């Protein structure tokens, strides 16, 4: 099981700033270890929901850096709202984590 994501969501006015850090090797299939190529292993799809409604989603390639970081912004969010993020990789592994939006300072 992959390590949990770190999700930080803060709201300024009515715009939530969401930052997600995923723990994943994002192997390109081009790297070698002990002379043998390390097989492709990377996140392919990401979905983010605000209170259960999809707001942001992505299809990505192995060119995304190891331990991927993404940020996006959602209008119409408020402190206390729930952000849920799911990723799925090419081996069928997946992970879902959630956080509560915090008020900005």
């Amino acid at each position: 099981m992959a390590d949990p994501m770190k999700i930080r969501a803060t709201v300024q006015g009515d715009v939530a700033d969401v930052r997600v850090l995923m723990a994943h090797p994002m192997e390109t299939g081009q790297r070698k270890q002990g002379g043998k190529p390390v097989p492709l292993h990377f996140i392919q799809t990401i979905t983010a929901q605000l209170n259960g409604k999809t707001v942001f989603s992505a299809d990505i390639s192995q060119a995304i850096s190891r331990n991927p970081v993404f940020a996006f912004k959602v209008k119409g969010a408020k402190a206390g709202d729930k952000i849920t993020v799911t990723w799925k990789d090419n081996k069928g592994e997946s992970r879902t984590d959630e956080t509560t939006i915090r008020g900005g300072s």
Partner: protein
Amino acid sequence: MQQSRRSVVRAGGALALFAALGGALLRPGRALAAWNKSAFEAKSAVDAMRALGMANAEESKDIEIRAPDIAENGAVVPIDITSNIPGTTSISVFLEKNPFPYTGTFDFAAGAMPFVHLRAKLGESTPVRVVVAAVGKFYTTAKEVKVTIGGCGG
């Protein structure tokens, strides 16, 4: 011959868009359900854009790409993209000189703003090409990023 192939490509794009709109109505979120294998496996940005039906994107100054001019470490290059085109529904990224240029598509729905921050691996200096989908049309711009140490070999 060339002409008919073009129109097929264009029709394909229109169809994809139609499917995307239909999908969005039925099920918010991932508009096109399948991860586009042929686009991700394309070895040139042009072929990838064709596989995504975006080959006819027109140049636009309303897309902002914020990325370093020179990246010391190609393994982690931060890229911020903002579209100022009204009705933007997705942002796609192509790292033209990477072995597989198509890096991803980010879809926005239900209040998400047309902005994304990502960190990518650049094998060598490359134009970072962005294609924005907005109200059935595609717009594009690119920014060159110079890499001093590549990020793909590990």
